C-alpha cells in the first residue's frame, strides 16, 4: 500500500481486497461488548475538515477511537479557498504538533494531493472527499457493502467483484463518489454503467472505464446493484435539467422502477437521501436499500484504512485478542 490514500485509482486490486478483508475483521470488533482495539494507541490523527460533513467526520472519528488513536477535530469551514494560504499554514501547524495522519475534507479538488505532495507535511494523508474529485473511503465502503450483499460476508473474503454489474445514477458531473466508484469498481472487476442526463455527465467521460447511458429503464433489468447519487436542488437553477419533476420521472428510483431490478439486486445511496426527487420513500425504506448498512460499514472500512496506513505489519485483530486476555 502507498503511504497516503488520495484516490481510489491509486489502489491495486490486491490493495483493495486487502482493505475489504481487513474491514471484515474490524467489523467483528463492532459485535463485541467493548468495541475497542489498542492498535493505534499513542498515534495522533487529525480530522481536518474545510467543508462541513458531519456524517463523514463522525464515521472517521468513530473508526479512530475504536483503534485507540488520539483524535483532534479541526474544522476550518469557510476559510478554505478564499484564503489560499490556509491549507499550507494549517498543515505546518499540524506538522509542528507531530501528527501521524491527517484525514482531510476540502472543497477544492486536489487539496489532499497537494497536502501529501508539497512537502508541507510528513504525516499520512487520507482523502475524506475533495471537491468533485475523489472520496476513496466512500467507494471502499460501497464495494464492501456490495461484496457482503452480493457474495456474502464470509464467502466474500479474498474476493473481488468480478462480473458484477453496477449502475450509478445521477449527478456524475459533480460527484466525487461517482469518480471514486468508477475507479475502484473497475479495479475490482465489476462492469459499471453511469446513467444521467447528458448535462450531468462530464465532457471527457469517454476515457473512463465504464459505459454511459441516458436511459435508466433499459439498464435496470441487467444490474446487480444500482447506486443513486445525490442531486443538489441548486443544479436545477443552473439548467442542468428542466424541473425536479422531470428529473424524478426520468432518473428517480420509485417502486415501479425498483420492480424492474433482478430479485437479488440492491439499491445503494451514499446519503443523505433527498426523498422524492432521486429516490422515493418506498424504495429508501425497503430491505433492498443498503443506505443504513453503508453507514455502519463506513466505520469498518475507515478502521481498516487507518490501520493499514498507520498500524504496521501485524494482523490487527488477532494481535489484540492476546492483549485482551
Amino acid at each position, binding site marked *: 500500500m502507498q503511504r497516503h490514500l488520495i484516490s481510489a485509482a491509486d489502489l491495486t486490486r490486491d490493495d483493495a481486497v486487502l482493505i475489504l478483508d481487513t474491514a471484515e475483521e474490524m467489523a467483528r470488533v463492532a459485535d463485541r461488548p467493548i468495541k475497542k482495539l489498542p492498535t493505534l494507541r499513542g498515534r495522533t490523527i487529525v480530522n481536518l475538515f474545510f467543508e462541513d460533513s458531519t456524517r463523514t467526520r463522525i464515521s472517521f472519528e468513530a473508526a479512530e477511537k475504536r483503534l485507540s488513536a488520539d483524535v483532534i477535530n479541526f474544522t476550518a469551514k469557510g476559510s478554505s479557498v*478564499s484564503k*489560499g494560504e490556509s*491549507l499550507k499554514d494549517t498543515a505546518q501547524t499540524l506538522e509542528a504538533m507531530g501528527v501521524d495522519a491527517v484525514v482531510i475534507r476540502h472543497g*477544492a*479538488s*486536489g487539496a489532499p494531493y*497537494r497536502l501529501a505532495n508539497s512537502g508541507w507535511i510528513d504525516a499520512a494523508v487520507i482523502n475524506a472527499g*475533495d471537491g468533485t474529485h475523489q472520496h476513496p473511503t466512500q467507494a471502499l465502503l460501497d464495494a464492501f457493502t456490495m461484496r457482503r450483499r452480493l457474495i456474502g460476508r464470509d464467502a466474500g473474503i479474498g474476493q473481488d467483484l468480478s462480473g458484477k454489474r453496477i449502475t450509478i445514477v445521477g449527478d456524475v458531473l459533480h460527484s*466525487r463518489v461517482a469518480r471514486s466508484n468508477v475507479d475502484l469498481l473497475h479495479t475490482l472487476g465489476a462492469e459499471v454503467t453511469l446513467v444521467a442526463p447528458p448535462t450531468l455527465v462530464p465532457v471527457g467521460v469517454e476515457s*473512463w472505464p465504464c459505459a454511459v447511458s441516458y436511459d435508466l429503464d433499459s439498464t435496470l433489468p441487467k444490474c446487480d446493484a444500482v447506486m443513486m447519487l445525490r442531486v443538489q436542488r441548486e443544479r436545477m437553477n443552473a439548467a442542468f435539467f428542466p424541473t425536479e419533476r422531470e428529473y424524478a420521472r426520468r432518473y428517480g428510483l420509485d417502486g415501479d422502477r425498483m420492480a424492474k431490478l433482478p430479485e437479488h439486486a440492491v439499491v445503494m445511496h451514499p446519503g443523505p437521501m433527498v426523498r422524492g426527487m432521486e429516490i422515493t420513500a418506498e424504495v429508501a425504506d425497503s430491505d433492498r436499500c443498503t443506505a443504513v448498512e453503508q453507514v455502519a460499514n463506513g466505520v469498518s472500512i475507515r478502521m481498516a484504512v487507518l490501520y493499514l496506513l498507520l498500524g504496521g505489519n501485524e494482523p490487527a485483530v488477532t494481535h489484540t485478542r492476546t492483549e485482551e486476555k
Partner: protein
Amino acid sequence: MSKILIRGAKVLGGAPQDVLIDGETIAEVGSGLSAEGAEVVEADGKVLLPGLVDLHTHLREPGREDSETVLTGTRAAASGGYTAVFAMANTFPVADTAGVVEQVWRLGREHGYCDVHPIGAVTVGLEGRKLAELGAMHESAAGVTVFSDDGKCVDDAVIMRRALEYVKAFGGVVAQHAQEPRLTEGAQMNEGVVSAELGLGGWPAVAEESIIARDVLLADHVGSRVHICHLSTAGSVEIVRWAKSRGIDVTAEVTPHHLLLTDELVRTYNPVYKVNPPLRTERDVLALREALADGTIDIVATDHAPHPHEDKDCEWAAAAMGMVGLETALSVVQETMVDTGLLDWAGVADRMSVKPARIGQATGHGRPVSAGEPANLTLVDTEYRGRVDPAGFASRSRNTPYEGRELPGRVTHTWLRGKATLVDGKLT
C-alpha cells in the same frame, strides 16, 4: 559616440557577418569591418536578431509591486532579449486613463532597459460596460495604440463593436482576451479527459472559439482590425485561418507555454501550471505550432504574468492564474519551432519582433538588421543547453513552469538603441 562591433554573428541565422553600431544606430553590416575605435563583441556562431517585441506583458505596476514593477519587468525583458514590451492594462488602478498610461510609459523611459508601450483598457475599470477614454490615451505621451481588457473578455457584443469602430479614428487595435464568461464560470483547467478525471471545473475550447468567431465577424462588418490574445485551441486556429482567407483584418498571438505544455501536467495539481487560457491538449499544441509556422498565427507573445510565491504555494483552486515568460520565451520557441524544423531564425525574428512591432506600431523596433536602422538587437547562443533556474531570474516573481527543465538557447546580449542592457548574460 560609442561604437560597438559585433563580429561574426549569423544575422537572422544566415552567413556570419560583422555589424557595426555607432551611437543609436546600425552604421554598417558586412564582412571584415574595421574594429577601430569600437568595443568588439565576438559573436562567432551566435545568431543576431532584431530586438524582440512582446505584445503581451503584465508589469503589475501600479498596484502589485510585490509581483513585479516596471523596473524588474523590463530587466526581465532585457534578459530575455526584448527591447520593447506592451504592458497590459489590468493594474491597480487600471490603465484606463491618460494619467496611468503616461506614468507607466515614463517609468519605462526612466529605467531604460526596454521600451514600455502601455496598453489601454477598452472599458472603464475593465468592467465591460463603458468605453474608456481611448482617444485621450492615444493622444497622451504614451501614444497608446493597443487596447485590451485582458484578464477579462470584452463579452458584450455591442461594446466590442463600438470599440472596434472607435479606434479606427487613430489606427488603433483592440486585443481581445477571448473567453465567453458564462461558459467558463468556475473554470480551473481545460475541459476534457483530464478535467473529467481530476474533477476540476472545465474551461471548454468553445468558450474561446465562439468569441473569436464573433469578433472576426464584427471586425469584418465594421471594417476594423482585431487582435486575438493568447490563442490556445486547434479550433481557434481554424477560425482565424478562415477569417484571413476571407480578407478579414485579424492578427493572433500564441504564448510559448501553449506551444510546449499540455493539460496532462495539471495531474500534479501544481498551480505553477495554472494559467488562463489553460494548457490544452497535445493536439492543440501541434495545431498551434503549425499555425505559427504557416503564418495563421502572426506572433509569439509571452503573457508574462508574475505572481508572488504565496499565490502559487497553495491548493490549485485558490492559486492565481499565470506564468512568467519573458526570460524563457526564446528558448521555448527554439525548442518547439526551430529545433523541430518548423521555423528558421528569420522566421523567429518575424514572429517575435517584426510582426509584433507592426501590430503595436512600435516604430523603431522589428526593423531589418541593416545600416541606418535603430540598433535594437539581440544576440543568441543557440548551441547552449541548460536547465532553467528561476533563482537567476530578473523578474520579481518566479512562477515559471520550466523550473529544472532543460531548454536550448540563451540570450547573451541585448542592445536598446545602441546601449547594451545585457552583456554576456548579465544585466548592465
